[in-house]
């Protein structure tokens, strides 16, 4: 479904700062691929390139058999949608839920707008009562549900998730992860999930790429990651750090 080869993204003068450095991977149809790494490793940049928000890249990207160019068509945006990390920042504060869900439908000239919105709200567990509310009247979890609804209302085939639960409390995180699992099955979605949380990534994804300073260091199945099949020292370090505080271990970490 998605194939990326030798993708490079640079920022600054002549791309001096390599945010994504020769990255290759592929995602099968209806698979969820995970990207894990610490801040600044290039995982969000990679997603932004895939969904067309960043046009300054080179390499080869194929999505659903189509070779991508920096400029994307309207049809592309309908088939690839993204959910962002911060539900407080990604929703327009002065647009109602209804307005936010109507806009993409109008842009893509889709029919049955009214029915689609109520169905969508139902599916993400918000219900009709939320339709005329504004973001400030919603909790963090409800906002993230709305962001998911907004992405899915165009019936995309690919859903890109950039840290969708890291701004949420753990109990709300569980609700959103359950929702994503359910929806990706019903809608047969192909997903890429980016997170810094190894537990979330291994819970949600079949295959996982471990990123550091713009490169994918190794690619593992969830079982290999949580078993002891991780080879790269960086992955091993991430794994042990995510198990909690350990004084002896912390002393061994590089500065």
């Amino acid at each position, binding site marked *: 479904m998605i194939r990326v080869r030798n993708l490079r993204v640079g920022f600054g003068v002549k791309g001096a700062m390599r945010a994504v450095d020769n990255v290759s991977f592929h995602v099968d149809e209806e698979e969820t691929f995970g990207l894990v790494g610490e801040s600044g490793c290039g995982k969000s940049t990679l997603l932004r390139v895939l969904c067309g928000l960043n046009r300054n890249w080179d390499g080869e990207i194929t999505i659903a058999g189509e070779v991508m160019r920096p400029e994307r068509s309207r049809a592309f945006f309908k088939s690839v949608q993204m959910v962002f990390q911060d539900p407080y920042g990604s929703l327009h504060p002065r647009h109602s839920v209804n307005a936010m869900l109507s806009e993409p439908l109008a842009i893509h000239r889709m029919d049955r707008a009214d029915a689609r919105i109520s169905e969508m709200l139902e599916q993400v567990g918000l219900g009709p009562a939320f339709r005329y509310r504004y973001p400030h009247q919603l909790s963090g979890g409800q906002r993230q549900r709305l962001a998911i609804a907004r992405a899915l209302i165009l019936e995309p085939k690919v859903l890109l998730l950039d840290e969708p639960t890291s701004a949420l*409390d753990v*109990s709300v995180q569980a609700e959103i992860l359950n929702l994503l*699992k359910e929806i990706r099955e019903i809608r047969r979605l192909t997903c890429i999930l980016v997170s*810094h949380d190894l*537990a979330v990534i291994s819970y949600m994804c079949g295959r996982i790429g471990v990123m550091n300073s713009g490169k994918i260091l190794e690619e593992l199945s969830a079982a290999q990651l*949580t*078993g002891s099949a991780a080879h790269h020292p960086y992955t091993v370090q991430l794994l042990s750090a995510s198990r909690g*505080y*350990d004084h002896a271990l*912390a002393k061994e970490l590089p500065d």
Partner: protein
Amino acid sequence: MSAQLLVEDLRVRFHTQQRVVEAVRGISFTVGREKVGIVGESGSGKSMTARAILRLSPPQARVSAKTLRFQGIDLLASSERQMLAVRGRRISMIMQDPKFALDPVMRVGDQIAEAIPGERRGSRAEDRERVLAMLDAVQIRNPARVFDLYPHEVSGGMGQRIMIAMMLMPEPSLLIADEPTSALDVTVRMRVLAILDELAAQRDLGLIFITHDLNLVATFCDRVLIMYAGRIVEECTARELAHAQHPYTRGLLASLPRLGDTRARLPVLRRDPEWISA
């Protein structure tokens, strides 16, 4: 272990025109020279508790308690002038994000030097030496270089070490850390925690560690208080957290995905209104 801080029936209320919002509903606990974790989700009142101890609650808040005593000082009855001798000097606080807590237009070293209490200040050169020694204590490799940097020139992990250095300068005996490592990457977080751990042990400090991360308190602290809706619903030793009894704590632990998790769905926390009153 003798308790430095005694808190009994602490309440923090906000009066609005329509109703009274109770942020903290009568909690009691003590802190000795140990690492006490306060865990809870957002809005559970954990930060409000920390602020109430330092008398830094917002002006609209009404704080009351049967006892709020630190080393024999009644914190509620103290005047603002008396509080100056406690706040920062004997109890200091590490904030979540060094980007916002440090003064952006002042050199790091000068900011740390400012934290030396007036009566202990020496000449400029002496103060500089003390700051360099403190930067060395928080394991900054090149203290002389870092001394002259501005906060925007340091990384998140370094910023948090600088903040710890600053907070330790007045030699407090109780440190309150409000989500000190939430903004940091896991590996950097481990390093900062190790520094905090060692310094607390060396200097015999009490530490109140506020966080939403259950894994972290279980492995870092000695004792854990679990807060929900302004109440302490459960208290246990940190190592026993996995065997916690209260349905809220159990629900939180269950809703956390784990490495190698095979559950098809994560159990969602069902909130029982009784947890607030019972």
